[in-house]
């Protein structure tokens, strides 16, 4: 039979001391070790400045670009490796060119039956006298659609990066006018007054005659854009905004791309179901010929002109 111990006797046993030590009720140092009083930790200004000084010295040594030996060696090695790589690349490309067949040879492998088909049946199937224009707008119209899309996306990206809202634009233009640094250039204005109508008419002529003579949508659109840039540069932004402001730009660009997309969709469904299209080809050599080439040319020309002008306006002042 076990007998419960009295409390005083239990406190003298080893198991009581062991369990008390484990639970942490009694601090084993108090009463057995001589301890001194602890004082509060003082932070002196001198040690702070010394530590900051050491940290700044370490940073300066790491980012010391001029005397860092590893960095200068890497720069020299990079330059030598880049020159060697370019020379090797050029050498291998020239080696390949030397094995190619002669340029100007009619029996080259790349003058195959595709070119023959485009030249021989081009006039009958598309109605265009200019084979290149007819080819990229009828046989390969989807490639041109992708490229028009790429122009649109590029303009949107430049707008995201550089466009500033209307209030800031007006404040900035007022500040520039008040500072008196803007002056009208008389030579530029006289030349622009004389040249801009001819440039715009020539651009429209090149677009409309894309299927009959060299040119087409891209060339005509670039010429139109260049004419608008000249006008905006010579006379300032306010006269240009009378006929080409942001609303006109938005409507022109989006409707041109959507119309091209709808035309592509129409041909996609017609061609997939082996139906003939109902747009007449007309007499080759006249303006209203070439079937669908004229509407697509106008869409592409509008798109390219708006893109060129938008790039210039966004770079120069941050808004249209």
């Amino acid at each position, binding site marked *: 039979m076990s007998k419960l111990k009295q409390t005083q006797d239990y406190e003298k046993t080893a198991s009581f001391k062991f369990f008390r030590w484990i639970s942490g009720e009694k601090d084993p140092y108090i009463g057995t070790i001589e301890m001194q009083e602890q004082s509060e930790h003082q932070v002196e200004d001198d040690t702070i400045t010394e530590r900051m000084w050491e940290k700044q010295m370490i940073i300066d040594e790491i980012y010391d670009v001029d005397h860092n030996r590893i960095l200068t060696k890497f720069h020299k090695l990079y330059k030598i490796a880049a020159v060697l790589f370019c020379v090797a690349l050029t050498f291998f490309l020239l080696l390949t060119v030397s094995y190619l067949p002669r340029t100007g040879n009619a029996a080259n492998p790349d003058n195959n039956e595709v070119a023959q088909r485009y030249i021989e049946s081009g006039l009958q199937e598309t109605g265009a006298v200019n084979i290149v224009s007819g080819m990229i707008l009828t046989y390969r119209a989807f490639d041109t659609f992708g490229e028009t899309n790429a122009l649109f996306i590029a303009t949107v990206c430049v707008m995201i990066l550089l466009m500033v809202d209307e209030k800031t634009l007006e404040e900035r233009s007022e500040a520039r006018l008040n500072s008196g640094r803007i002056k009208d250039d008389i030579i530029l204005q006289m030349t622009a007054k004389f040249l801009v109508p001819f440039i715009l008419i020539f651009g429209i002529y090149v677009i409309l005659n894309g299927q009959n003579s060299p040119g*087409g949508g891209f*060339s005509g659109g*670039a010429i139109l854009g*260049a004419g608008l840039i000249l006008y905006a540069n010579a006379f300032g932004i306010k006269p240009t905004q009378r006929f080409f402001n942001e609303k006109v730009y938005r409507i022109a660009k989006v409707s041109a791309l959507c119309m091209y997309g709808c035309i592509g969709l129409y041909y996609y469904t017609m061609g997939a179901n082996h139906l003939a299209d109902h747009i007449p080809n007309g007499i080759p050599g006249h303006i209203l010929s070439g079937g669908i080439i004229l509407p697509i040319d106008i869409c592409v020309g509008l798109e390219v002109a708006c893109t060129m002008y938008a790039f210039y306006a966004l770079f120069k002042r941050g808004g249209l």
Partner: protein
Amino acid sequence: MTIFQMILLVFIIVCAIAVSFSRNLLNSVLIFMSYSLIMSIIWICLESPDLAITEAAVGAGVTTILFITTLKKIHAMGAEDKKTKTNALEVEREAEEHE
């Protein structure tokens, strides 16, 4: 015709090397514009008139204007802009010292 083409091609290589080695940014952009123009004439020698019109309008026209507008915005053109650039750097340095 062949000699003419060869002279134009040599001119193009000289233009490309001159663009790499010139120090002034405005000089580089102007030499690049002449490179574009001579390229446009080479397209005519290779019997592609569409490419010639497009390269003349786009390369020697719009691309050069974009480059020159960029140079104006980064204050790299002319003596007036150099003053603006040094002023901007000085203002920045003073702001750093005050912080």
